[in-house]
């Protein structure tokens, strides 16, 4: 067990090292969230305090999601291009342990997305979150982080067996922005679309996060946390089967190599 923890830790350290030396990674956690936050803040600063929270936090959540969701898959694609995917597949450490290490790196970078967006809101738009409940906010952020972690854990192996996964799953990245209410409440969505939002764990975690940051809403965020955690656990169970499928599928098709 200790050797598995050490392997995950090394995968985390290695992924962080690779990010630090890759200038494009800064686009994901620094530049893109700032763009989203700036647009959101321009639109929302005149619509009342609650909506401003979407501007302050929305860019950060989008940055967080983009990195958490796509970086894991990107790293698998990078491994394929580098010719290292087969190497990490054929070691005695299970693939999911390596992926956990990589995703932990993604999540850390993703959390950093909040720093530039909150700073932009505060210094650029004088927008702040004075009604924030620090404890509820921290727990909500932890639930959101766990939710992203599980989704990324479940989807990342698809990149190992599906070379075109990136183009297909790219649509999911953008869809989740709207479906999970990252920049606006999901009540703005058409009624027929809202059930889709309800089966996505980030919807509930995001709702809790905004509730904890809002002084006008004293709602019970515990229910949101529990639903988000319950859905995440369901995804986790599904991912166990997915990893088994990927292990077999990759060895049948030989998709791990570039050619």
């Amino acid at each position: 067990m200790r050797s598995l923890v050490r392997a995950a830790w090394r995968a985390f350290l290695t992924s962080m090292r690779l990010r630090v030396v890759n200038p494009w990674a800064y686009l994901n956690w620094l530049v893109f969230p700032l763009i989203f936050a700036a647009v959101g803040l321009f639109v929302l600063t005149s619509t009342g305090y609650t909506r401003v929270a979407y501007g302050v936090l929305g860019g950060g959540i989008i940055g967080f999601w983009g990195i958490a969701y796509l970086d894991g898959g990107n790293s698998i694609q990078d491994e394929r291009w580098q010719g290292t995917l087969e190497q990490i597949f054929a070691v005695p450490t299970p693939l999911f342990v390596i992926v956990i290490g990589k995703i932990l790196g993604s999540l850390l970078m993703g959390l950093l997305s909040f720093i530039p967006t909150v700073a932009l809101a505060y210094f650029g738009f004088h927008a702040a979150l004075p009604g924030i409940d620090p404890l509820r906010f921290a727990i909500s952020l932890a639930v959101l982080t766990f939710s992203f972690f599980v989704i990324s854990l479940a989807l990342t192996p698809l990149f190992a067996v599906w070379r075109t996964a990136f183009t297909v799953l790219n649509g999911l990245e953008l869809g989740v922005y709207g479906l999970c209410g990252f920049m606006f409440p999901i009540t703005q969505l058409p009624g027929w679309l809202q059930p889709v939002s309800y089966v996505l764990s980030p919807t509930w975690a995001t709702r809790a996060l905004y509730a904890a940051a809002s002084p006008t809403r004293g709602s019970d965020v515990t229910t949101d946390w529990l639903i988000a955690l319950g859905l995440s656990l369901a995804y986790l169970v599904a991912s166990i089967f997915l990893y088994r499928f990927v292990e077999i599928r990759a060895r049948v098709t030989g998709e791990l190599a570039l050619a």
Partner: protein
Amino acid sequence: MPAAFRLGAVPPEPPFRHAIEVAGLRKVYTNTRGTFRRTKVENVALDGIDLAIEPGELFGLLGPNGAGKTTTVKILTTLLLPTAGTARVLGHDVVSKTNDVRRRIGFVFGGERGLYWRLSGYDNLRYFADLYRIPPQVSKRRIAELLEVLGLAGREHDKVERYSRGMKQRLHLARGLLNDPDVLFLDEPTIGLDPVGARDLRVLVRGLADGGKTIFLTTHYMFEADAICDRVAVIKKGRIVAQGTPRSIKQLVGEIGVVEFEVDGISPLDLDRLQGLAGVSSVVTAERELASVVTIHCAQPADVMTQLGKLLDGIALRNVSSREATLEDAYVALIGEQS
């Protein structure tokens, strides 16, 4: 062999007869063809191969591109599942005992890819040491040993992108040896290396086999296989067409010698007369800048040499020589005659 090649203790006596045992191994890839009307196409990469490799043996698998060499290696290293047949490494089934196999093997694929170029050589090795679940105190010592033996000490903290091709290949080998494997798979390890680098690597590989490791090598270079392999197999279109020691492979094709000479020009009639000599299996001409080189594959080179003068009376023969048939001669004959 330097003592440092023997990483860790000598492997214990294995409770199995063959280090690698393959029976009726078959691999079929299914692809689709067409844009709108898609049809499934089956591509047979391996068509029922059998191999039995002794512990400590250096075994070479030879064959043209697409013959099934890499597919064989990938099945044995647990990267691919066979469609039919069985494959065991150190007694462990590669399909059902994947982790037992992975712990005890190492593999090196040729070429420059397969490393993290933006990381240092040391970081590459440290990463894989942890993925092989080697205790830190052991991995630290082993990495230092490998860097020393493979001539990378002093450059280990440089980024891999600054390494020469030979250094990258040696780093590959170091990675493959991290877990002190009992069986090492080398898929065209000298491809793209300069002659000196390739020779150094061959010496290293031979040293590892002499130290007790079982080596499974695939290569395009026949002289390489001839020089270092204990036994070889020739694979063509997914089937083993010959198997044995390099010497027995040469004898398989019925040739024990080659006579070569240069001429300014030679007529088809003269070539036919050479072909008609007793024991001659083939006559091949190759055009060089200033002459034609005639190569005669034959059973009795001495007899052919004595008859050359009479048979080609009036033609100036230069640089007449005879040599033993090489593995390459036998390989060309085997691959050619089966097509």
